């Protein structure tokens, strides 16, 4: 039996190697003292120094982050209230609306991007920061609705009534009773929206203009001429942050969990 177990572990090892190979390469290149990908010119931190003075990359990073957080915040508010509104609808209209909200997830990114671009063209809105933000909100909201909905279903319907019987205004009832209960869903919706927005390329490609570009678009433009090692340095930094953050959060959960080290849940914003 033991060789079978080793075989299984080796398989996971191989898949890990496949998934991490390009990442290891990328990290190595970020320390490579040569602009070419083909040769190793010795260890350097030069790209990390130059990264912070590169206005194009820093600007793109700023756009990515500001669009990401703004889009995530707006779509979390919109999606949470939307989910509550959907939840309170009668069966027929609810199902109709749910199908509509699910459309962007069923559709491919290309179709979403093209359709939003045509919308802005029709409304004579010039493509730029605002259209980029609106588009990101548009494709993030469904994910927020999707992660809030199950929490609403688990909600005890008597709680809201009890709050109102005891004299709470709807707003107080929402803030004190409903929101704390659905908070995990709202939070995971926010994180999901943030992740989707930061990682997005396709929709951004169709809906941005007038020189506004986020990291994905900058990388896409660079890929044709050759990617600057500075981008590798930036990605290494981002990857390191995410890595430490997620592993840290999950290890803490592991330690807290009383069940002999075996954990059912892991926090992955997907």
């Amino acid at each position, binding site marked *: 039996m033991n060789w079978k177990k080793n075989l299984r572990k080796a398989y996971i090892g191989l898949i890990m190697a496949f998934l991490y190979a390009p*990442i290891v390469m990328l990290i190595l290149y970020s320390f490579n003292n040569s602009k070419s990908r083909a040769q190793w010119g010795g260890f350097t931190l030069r790209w990390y120094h130059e990264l912070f003075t590169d206005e194009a990359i820093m600007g793109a990073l700023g756009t990515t982050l500001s669009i990401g957080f703004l889009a995530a915040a707006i779509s979390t508010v919109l999606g949470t209230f939307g989910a509550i509104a959907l939840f309170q609808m009668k069966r027929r209209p609810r199902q109709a609306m749910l199908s*509509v909200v699910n459309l962007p997830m069923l559709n*491919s*990114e290309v179709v979403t991007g093209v359709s939003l671009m045509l919308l802005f063209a029709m409304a004579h809105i010039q493509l730029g920061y605002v259209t980029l933000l609106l588009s990101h909100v548009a494709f993030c909201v469904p994910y927020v609705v999707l992660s809030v909905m199950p929490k609403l279903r688990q909600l005890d319907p008597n709680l809201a009534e009890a709050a109102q019987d005891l004299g709470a205004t709807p707003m107080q009832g929402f803030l004190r009773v409903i929101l704390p209960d659905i908070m995990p869903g709202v939070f995971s919706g926010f994180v999901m929206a943030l992740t989707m927005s930061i990682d997005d390329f396709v929709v951004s490609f169709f809906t941005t203009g007038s020189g506004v570009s986020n990291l994905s678009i900058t*990388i896409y433009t660079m890929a044709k001429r050759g990617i600057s090692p500075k981008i590798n340095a930036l990605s290494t930094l981002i990857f390191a942050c995410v890595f430490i953050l*997620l592993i840290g959060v999950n290890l803490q959960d592991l330690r807290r969990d009383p069940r002999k080290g075996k954990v059912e849940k892991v926090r992955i914003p997907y």
Partner: protein
Amino acid sequence: MMRNKALAAPFVLWAMIFIVVPLVMIVWYGVTIEEPIPYTEIVQPDGSVIYQLEDGSRTTEKPWQKRAVFSLNNFRRMLEPTYLRLLLRSLKVAVITTAICLLLGYPVALILTGRDFKRPALWLLLLILPMWMNFLLRTYSWMSILENSGILNSWIARLREAIPALDEWLLSMGVRRRIIFLYNENAVILGMVYNYLSFMIMPIYTVIEKIDKSLLEAAADLGASPVKSFLRVTLPYSLPGVLEGITMVFVPAVTTFVISQLMGGGKVPLIGDIIQNQFGKSSDWHFGATLSLLVMVVVLAFMGALGRIDKDDEPHKEVRIL
């Protein structure tokens, strides 16, 4: 009490503007083409020309505006062999990618949910983590591994220098010293499998993890071999996850336009590339919209075939919470 409609109206309005209207726009652009607005030239007694438009208005400048008219020309164009071949290739590449992802990913989910790993969730997290690095960069990084003077080729070269017998045997088999990995269909498939593999692993893992372990114990107690209990318990219960995984891989695979450009070097254009071109270089938005419609229909047909439309609304009581 807050009125139900007051809460629903803004959301419904938002969904209309940002989901429904854009799709209607695609349909509208898809079934129209642009043509110059018609006008008649009227020569004045003094020899100058004025132009009269259909609505009777006149200008002294030649009208340059275009208008959209209903036409199914783009649908006819879409059915030309060039585009059908592209669609077929996109479907082929997507099907192969999905199959490889399933074959590679299912065992991963199965092994991780088994008893070999003490912290399966952490391993799963490690498998998903690469997805946090920008996918364009990861794909680009594959190019540097696979290119003609890349790392893989230099390792192979070193290996062949070290073992001359291997080198001779490979040469006799017709394998060149520098293997061309990039810029063909296989490279595109590799890029897709790499980018979408975790989309397959995640849902399958989630489903297998939820299977009641006592079912497997019961199967074993009743004398089922591990293979049989897998076939009779785990596999049927994991099917919803498999379907979810297939969708999550197939849909982006059939419509991508970046991976094919990078890994295929423009030599393996897919339907997504052609759509992108219509909104960029060749700039025929109407034809681009027609092709988008085609892609939409293909994707929806695929989902319909898998029975994955309208499955999210679990029954619940109608309650008012606000």
